[in-house]
């Protein structure tokens, strides 16, 4: 597929998602005029883009949708659930058409037209004033394209300024008009004087247009005046006097003092590609406010850039260390300055690949809505930590597992409203999707307040499958583990939504292939919580640099609770390997970093850093703190092996590698001390 086509699809997908989000937002809250406008803009740019690509069916459908939304926008109507569902269906239709276009070419769908009619009917049916608005049935003129129903039309007479200049290009004006609406008819009149009076830079022509636009007349006027300064422009609404409409072409002819008016119709499909681009028009600029300015770049290019920057960092550090007493002042200053810039560059390039998880999470509200509606359940979907940043490839890979988990939560977790009521729960169930970063990993949690996992049924099923015998009573944890085994499904019946072959085992496999893990907690009647732990391969995290001897290690800053002088502590030693320290009356297992990394002990003053993970604490004895810095986690495994005790490595600003401590591993080691302590105490 060529790159223009790719760009179109990329943008189209983005817009479809955007429309969906706006619709969902509208449905749940107050109808903010700005969001309705956004919806309208999406439909509008969609029309423009698809027309530019020559996809007539898509552009026709979106044009109809645009008109419908324009009505919605004008009337300041609240979005009823009925209308929202219809509009969401329209969004799905766009998806379908997109897919068709991709696979079969420019083909339509027979249900397009009925859907549009339905939408229009709902919108018009609720119009409070029963005034015979410019609605479809009145207009029977065959010249009218079927999609123009309901959109106001204007007759525009445009006489350019007598002296033409580069700024006053009539053609440009026509092009621009085409972007804001549709030029249905275009008549050109010429009044060319005898040759001896002809001026080469003068304009002797004028245009008469039949123009259809959803915009206010004032905007059209502003547009014309902006583009045609000094020109004579007349705008008359056509729909205001529909009776004269059929007579108009003849009327125009009688007015014509000129010889023969040449008639040209600009078909809508010929909207120039420029239509998709931002124009200078003030209206559009204002409308675009709030949209992120971005361009698309392939990840390969970014990776190449990143690698190059890493090399520059190293070269820079070599240059810096090549300085000596003889280096003159100017060189020194230049190196210092470059150091700063290179560091900035490094940081920025690293940040490019990261995307907030909202990029992924935004897909789910729609899915939850539809799934819940289909199953007759009431679900309140909450999202937390959307700003957590994650590498793009990782985000993509998490899409399927999360979709599955959320569907499961609705299908199997959340009870039907009446069952919930009987159990003294609010009718509306809650599913919460949250993301956070901790100990150098990304955690994504799917939590529901549904009925929880029926461990008894899990056990029965396991017996049925021959995994355990009647006499076995495995722990809850073991039973939950069964859920992730291939071939296991507790769903009583295979539903349309989940439990269709792809099971939890696939979810587990997917997550594990990312180097992550998944665990589940559940309580009968109270809910289930799935926790995904994924490495942040490329995610940036805040790290704290720790030193022992001349070595440098990193711990995730999020795990650090506090730090203080080791000497200030009362410290209890048990055997020689298992130690606890007394921090304000609480005993915390001690791990000596020197020992942990295989360095000889020292009797120097040390520091204690208290680290915490999931409620467990550990005191780490170190020599010193090197400061806080942003680090990018790199895999040790990719070209080497996963090293025990370390979550990975990072590249420091000077190009050197520092290992990142695995806090959970330190805690595990500490727990051993604690258990030993408990055994003797």
């Amino acid at each position, binding site marked *: 597929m060529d790159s223009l086509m790719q760009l179109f699809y990329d943008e189209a997908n983005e817009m479809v998602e955007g429309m969906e989000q706006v619709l969902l937002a509208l449905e749940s809250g107050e109808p903010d005029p700005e969001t309705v406008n956004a919806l309208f803009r999406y439909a509008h740019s969609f029309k423009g883009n698809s027309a530019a690509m020559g996809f007539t069916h898509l552009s026709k459908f979106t044009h109809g949708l645009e008109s419908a939304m324009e009505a919605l926008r004008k009337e300041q109507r609240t979005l009823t659930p009925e209308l929202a569902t219809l509009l969401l269906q329209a969004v799905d239709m766009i998806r379908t058409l997109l897919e068709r276009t991709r696979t079969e070419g420019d083909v339509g769908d027979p249900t397009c037209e009925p859907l549009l009619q339905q939408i229009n009917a709902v919108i018009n049916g609720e119009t409070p004033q029963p005034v015979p608005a410019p609605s479809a049935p009145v207009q029977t003129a065959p010249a009218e394209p079927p999609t123009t129903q309901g959109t106001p039309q204007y007759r525009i007479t445009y006489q350019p300024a007598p002296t033409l200049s580069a700024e006053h290009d009539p053609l440009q004006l026509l092009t621009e008009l085409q972007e804001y609406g549709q030029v249905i008819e275009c008549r050109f009149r010429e009044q060319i004087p005898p040759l001896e009076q002809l001026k080469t830079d003068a304009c002797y022509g004028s245009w008469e247009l039949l123009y259809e636009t959803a915009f206010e007349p004032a905007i059209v006027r502003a547009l014309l005046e902006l583009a045609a300064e000094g020109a004579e422009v007349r705008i008359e609404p056509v729909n205001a006097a529909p009776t004269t409409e059929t007579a108009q072409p003849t009327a125009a002819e009688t007015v014509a003092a000129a010889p023969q008016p040449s008639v040209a119709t600009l078909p809508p499909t010929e909207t120039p590609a420029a239509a998709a681009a931002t124009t200078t028009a003030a209206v559009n600029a204002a409308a675009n406010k709030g949209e992120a300015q971005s361009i698309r770049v392939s990840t390969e290019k970014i990776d190449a850039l990143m690698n190059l920057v*890493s090399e520059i960092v190293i070269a820079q550090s070599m240059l810096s260390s090549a300085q000596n007493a003889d280096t003159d002042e100017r060189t020194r200053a230049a190196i210092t300055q470059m150091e700063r810039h290179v560091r900035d560059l490094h940081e920025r390039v690293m940040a490019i690949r990261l995307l907030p998880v909202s990029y992924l999470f935004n897909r789910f509200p729609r899915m939850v809505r539809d799934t819940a509606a289909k199953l007759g359940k009431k679900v309140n979907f909450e999202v937390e930590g959307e700003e957590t940043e994650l590498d793009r490839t990782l985000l993509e890979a998490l899409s399927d597992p999360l979709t599955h988990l959320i569907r499961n939560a609705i299908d199997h977790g959340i009870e039907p409203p009446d069952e919930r009521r009987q159990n003294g729960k609010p009718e509306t169930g809650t599913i919460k999707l949250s993301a956070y970063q901790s100990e150098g990993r990304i955690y994504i949690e799917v939590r529901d307040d549904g009925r929880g996992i029926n461990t008894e049924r899990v056990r029965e099923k396991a017996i049925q499958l021959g995994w355990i015998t009647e006499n076995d009573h495995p722990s809850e944890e073991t039973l939950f583990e069964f859920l992730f085994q291939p071939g296991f499904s507790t769903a009583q019946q295979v539903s349309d939504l989940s439990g269709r072959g792809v099971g939890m085992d696939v979810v587990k496999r997917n997550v594990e292939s990312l180097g992550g893990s998944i665990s589940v907690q559940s309580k009968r009647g109270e809910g289930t919580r799935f926790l995904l732990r994924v490495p942040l391969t490329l995610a940036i995290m805040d790290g704290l640099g720790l030193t022992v001897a001349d070595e440098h290690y990193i711990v995730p800053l999020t795990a650090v609770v506090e730090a203080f002088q080791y000497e200030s502590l009362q410290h209890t030693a048990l055997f020689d390997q298992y130690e606890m320290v007394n921090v304000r009356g609480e005993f915390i297992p001690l791990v000596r970093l020197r020992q942990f990394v295989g360095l000889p002990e020292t009797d120097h003053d040390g520091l204690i850093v208290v680290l915490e993970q999931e409620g467990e604490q550990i005191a780490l004895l170190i020599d010193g703190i090197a400061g806080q810095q942003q680090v990018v986690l*790199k895999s*040790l495994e*990719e070209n*080497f*092996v996963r*090293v025990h005790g370390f979550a990975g*490595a990072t590249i420091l600003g000077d*190009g050197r*590698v520092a290992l990142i401590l695995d806090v959970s591993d330190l805690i595990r080691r500490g727990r051993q001390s604690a258990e030993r302590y408990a055994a003797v105490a």
Partner: protein
Amino acid sequence: MTTITQPTETTTATEMNTDKYLVFQIGNETYGVPLLQVQEIRTYTPATRVPNAPDYVLGVINLRGNIIAVIDARTRFGLPPLPEEESTVVVVAQVSDKIFGLRLDSVSDVMDIPLEQVQPTPPIASEATQRFLSGVVQVGERVVILLNLREIFDIDALSSIAA
């Protein structure tokens, strides 16, 4: 940073089926590795020690954003390591899908090795290092011992430090 020199004139055997090898000295012996496996040659920059790793693993370094391990050839061959010098290099090589660095005192040449003349390795080395060798060949005056990089890196043996 790449300092591969042109093939020398000792390679007169044009009729024969030859492969290019990167040739270097360790101690008194001349060794060669297939040039195809060599990605680049870098000046040595200090590696970050990996706790609990075997002594021949010097540590890890940053190769354009990737973390790779550096193995010291002398230590791997049971020889005392030499201090770092101007000529100390890291040969970056790929075996299977992993990239690693091999620290050498210096590299000297790229040679065309006539494959037909490669002999099985005589038991010149201790049994421990025997597996690092894939053959021996006489090129002109020189005897070149061919190395098996996969065995030298031996990622499976590193499982002792793996989590």
